[in-house]
């Protein structure tokens, strides 16, 4: 069965540091996508970065990058030059195409606190 595991429920760093958030997953699908989101108090899941299973490109978006180890079924989010505004809850999600839509499994999230 599909599963997404974020081992660390909390993390704290100082402003300017770099953070790696780990996520492992289980899937039997060949094609899937892994998303990282930041969850806001408003309920919005802000999209950060996406990795497609078939891609070998090292995805990067601004201060966000990922380390994708497909054989280990692992994807880590790296946030560089942390700012206090980066504080919040981060979710890893596995998107699997299904007939007529997608199945999405979310990890339980990691709450990050960045101190000035």
């Amino acid at each position: 069965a599909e599963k997404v595991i974020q081992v660390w429920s909390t993390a704290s760093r100082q402003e300017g540091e770099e953070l790696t958030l780990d996520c492992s997953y289980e899937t039997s699908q060949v094609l899937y996508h892994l998303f990282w989101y930041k969850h806001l108090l408003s309920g919005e899941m802000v999209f950060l970065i996406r990795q497609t299973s078939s891609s070998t490109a090292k995805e990067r978006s601004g201060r966000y990058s990922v380390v994708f180890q497909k054989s280990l079924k692992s994807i880590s989010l790296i946030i560089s030059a942390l700012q206090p505004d980066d504080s919040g809850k981060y979710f890893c999600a596995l998107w699997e195409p299904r007939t007529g839509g997608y199945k999405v499994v979310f990890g339980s999230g990691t709450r990050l606190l960045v101190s000035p």
Partner: protein
Amino acid sequence: AQTIHQWPVAEIKAVGSPLSLGCTIKGKSSPNLYWYWQATGGTLQQLFYSITVGQVESVVQLNLSASRPKDDQFILSTEKLLLSHSGFYLCALTGGENTLYFGAGTRLSVL
């Protein structure tokens, strides 16, 4: 296995015009249903959820409304579209812990 059918697949509408998007569920009785809006960048915003017929909770105010007229149907609507309503609308149901099943979505362009 449950299926989620969303209609229409895409809409192009004028500002100020009405809108109705639909979602029909097959294969699951009494589902918890959700409307999500996905912005162009990929950000997901939960709009409404419903746990039973006739009951809908609003998560965010976006000048939209939702109704659950039947157990297997969830409708998203507005009488007056705004430019900011453009985006991708996804109907979803829960499929276990931390799991959502999304439909294929409706792409809405408001001009």
